[in-house]
C-alpha cells in the first residue's frame, strides 16, 4: 500500500510541474491559437538562465530567480515580435513548423553557448526528504511542487482578476469584440507569449533542479502534449487536471508495469493514454468543441 501511495504522491508532485508548463502552453494557445512546440526549449533555456545567473555569475537564489523570469519574458517577447507575428493567419502546418524550427534554433544555440555537458544546480533546498506518514518524497520534488502550485495559483488569479488577465481572456474569447472594446490585441499576443515563456521557464527550473540540466532537457516538453491534449488545448483547468493525471499515470506505469513490459514504460504511458482519450473525446476532456460553419 505504501508503494502505491508513494507512487501517487510522486505523481502528484511531478504532475504539479507538468500542470505549470501546460498552463504556459495553454495561455499561448488560448490567446493566439498557436501551438508552441518550442515549450520544451523554453524550459531548457529558463533552466540555463538560472544556471548562468546563479553559478556562473554567483548571484543569490532569489535575485537569480527573478532575473530568470525577466529573461524568459524577454525571450517570449522577442520570439513573438520577431517570428510569430509574421505568422498570423497562416495555415496550421506553417505555425506548427515555425515553432518546431524555433525549438531547433534554441536547442542549437543552447549547445553553442552552454555546451552539451551535463550541469547541476547547487542545492537550493534542505536535502532531508519530506516524510508524510509512510510516504517519503524527495525534497526537490516536494519544493518543486510547492513552487509550481504557487505559480499556477498566481497565474490563475492574474487571469481572473488582473486587468491584463481579463483583457487576455477577452482576446481569447473574441478578437473582434476585444478590439472594439479598446484592447490592444497585439499587445495581448505579446503578453501571452511572455507569460507562457515564464511558466515554461519555471517548470524547466524545477525539473532541472531535480535531474540536472543539459540541452536535451527540452525533450521533457514532449510529455506536455499528452497533458494539454488530455485537458483540451484551450482549457486552463484542463491543463492542471491533465498535468496531475499524466504525472500519476506515468508514475503508476513506471512502478507497476516495468516488470511486465520492456523498456521505458514511463515515457510511453502518457502517449497511450493520450491516444485512448482522443479516440473517446476528440477535443480532450475539457476542450472546446470546434463548431464550423461555412
Amino acid at each position, binding site marked *: 500500500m505504501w508503494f502505491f501511495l508513494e507512487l501517487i504522491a510522486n505523481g502528484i508532485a511531478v504532475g504539479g510541474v507538468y500542470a505549470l508548463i501546460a498552463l504556459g502552453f495553454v495561455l499561448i494557445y488560448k490567446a493566439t491559437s498557436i501551438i508552441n512546440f518550442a515549450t520544451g526549449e523554453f524550459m531548457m533555456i529558463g533552466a540555463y538562465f538560472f544556471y548562468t545567473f546563479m553559478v556562473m555569475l554567483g548571484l543569490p537564489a532569489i535575485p537569480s530567480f527573478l532575473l530568470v523570469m525577466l529573461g524568459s519574458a524577454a525571450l517570449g517577447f522577442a520570439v513573438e515580435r520577431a517570428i510569430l507575428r*509574421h505568422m498570423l493567419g497562416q495555415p496550421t*502546418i506553417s505555425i506548427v513548423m515555425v515553432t518546431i524550427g524555433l525549438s531547433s534554433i534554441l536547442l542549437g544555440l543552447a549547445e553553442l553557448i552552454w555546451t552539451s555537458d551535463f550541469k547541476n544546480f547547487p542545492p537550493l533546498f534542505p536535502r532531508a526528504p519530506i516524510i508524510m506518514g509512510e510516504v517519503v518524497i524527495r525534497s526537490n520534488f516536494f519544493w518543486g511542487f510547492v513552487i509550481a502550485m504557487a505559480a499556477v495559483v498566481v497565474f490563475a488569479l492574474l487571469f481572473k482578476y488582473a486587468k491584463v488577465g481579463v483583457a487576455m481572456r477577452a482576446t481569447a474569447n473574441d478578437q473582434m469584440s476585444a478590439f472594439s472594446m479598446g484592447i490592444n490585441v497585439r499587445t495581448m499576443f505579446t503578453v501571452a507569449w511572455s507569460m507562457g515563456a515564464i511558466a515554461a521557464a519555471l517548470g524547466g527550473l524545477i525539473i532541472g533542479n531535480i535531474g540536472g540540466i543539459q540541452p536535451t532537457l527540452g525533450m521533457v516538453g*514532449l510529455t506536455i502534449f499528452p497533458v494539454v491534449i488530455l485537458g483540451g488545448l484551450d482549457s486552463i483547468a484542463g491543463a492542471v487536471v491533465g498535468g496531475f493525471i499524466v504525472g500519476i499515470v506515468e508514475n503508476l506505469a513506471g512502478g507497476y508495469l516495468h516488470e511486465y513490459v520492456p523498456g521505458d514504460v514511463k515515457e510511453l504511458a502518457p502517449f497511450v493514454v493520450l491516444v485512448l482519450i482522443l479516440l473517446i473525446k476528440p477535443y480532450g476532456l475539457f476542450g472546446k468543441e470546434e463548431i464550423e460553419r461555412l
Partner: protein
Amino acid sequence: MRIGDYKVSYGADEAVFRTGTVRVWMIVLFLAMAVFPFWAGDYLLYMANLTGIAIVAAVGLNILTGAAGQISLGHAAFVGIGAYTSAILITKLGLPFIICLPLSGLSAALFGVIVGAPSMRMKGLYLCIATLAAQVIFEYLFKNWESLTGGIRGINVPAPTIFGFEFNNEFRFYFITVPVVIIVVTAARNLFRTRVGRAFIAIRDRDFSAQLMGINLFRYKLYAFALSSFLAGVAGCLWVNFIKIVTPEHFPLHESIRYLAMIIVGGLGSVLGSIFGAIFMTIIPEVLKSMLNIVSAFSPDAMAYLSPLQTVVFGLLIVVFLVFEPHGLAEMWRRVKDYFRLWPFEH
C-alpha cells in the same frame, strides 16, 4: 520568350510536359542522371542514393501534408515500418528484394490507415498530436519488441540481389534508387490529375466544402494516409537495403521533422518541391561540414561546433522559409523560370 505555344487539342493542353522546350530539358535531365554515376565518386553516389530515398519519402509526406492538409509528425515511423518489414522479410523469410519493396510499402500503408483512422473525428492540431503519439509508440516498439526487431542492436540485411545481380555498392544501388524515384515522382505528378488527387486538394482547402461536393472525407483522408505511408514504406525498404542495417535510432521524431522541413523548404503540395526540398536538406549539412572544414584550418576546434550549428541552421531554414517564402523553393524556381520565359519583356 516562349512563343508558338498553341494547342489544338485537349490532350496537348493536359499533357504533363506541354512544350517542346520542356521535353528537351527533361531529356537532358535524364541523360545527366544516366551519366552521373560514371562521373561521380563513391561519396557523391552515396549522397545521391540518400537523396533519392529522401525524395521518395518526402513525396509521400507531401501527398498527406502538402496536398491533403493532414499534418503528420510520424512520417519517420512509417519509413521505419517499411525498413523493418523489409529487413524481417529478407532475413526471416528470405524473400527477394523485388517482392519486399511493394510489401514494405503495403505494410506501412496498413499502419498508416490505422493511424489515420482517428482522422474521422479529429483534425488539425489534435490529429497532429495523435500522429506524434504514433511516432512515440512505434519508436518504442522498434526498440522493445526484441524478438521481431532485434531491439537496439537492430537487424543486419544482406545486399539486395535482382535476378542474380548483387547491388552491393553505391554505384550499383544507384540503378535501383533512380528508377524507383522516377516511378514515384511520375505517379505522384499524375495523381494530382486524377479524382483522388483533386479530392485531396479540395479537403485541404476546405474540408466542409469538399464534403458538400460529394467527397467522402473519411475515405479520402484514409487514402491520403495510405498513399503517404506506402511511399514512406518503400523509402524505408530502399534505405535498409542500401545501409544494410536497421536500428531504432534511425527513426526518431527528429527524422519526422526533417521530412516536414523538406516539404516546407521545397514547397508544400508540390511534387517538384518535394524533390528540391529533399535535395536541399540533404546537401545543406554537408555544405556546413565542408565550410567548417575550411574554418578549422584557422581554429582547430571549429568542428566541435558542427552539430549545434547544424541544429541552428536547420531551424533557421524552416523559420526563414516560412516567414519569407512560404511556397518554398518550388516557387522560387517558378519565378526564375517565368523571368526567362518572358525575357526580355518582364512586364
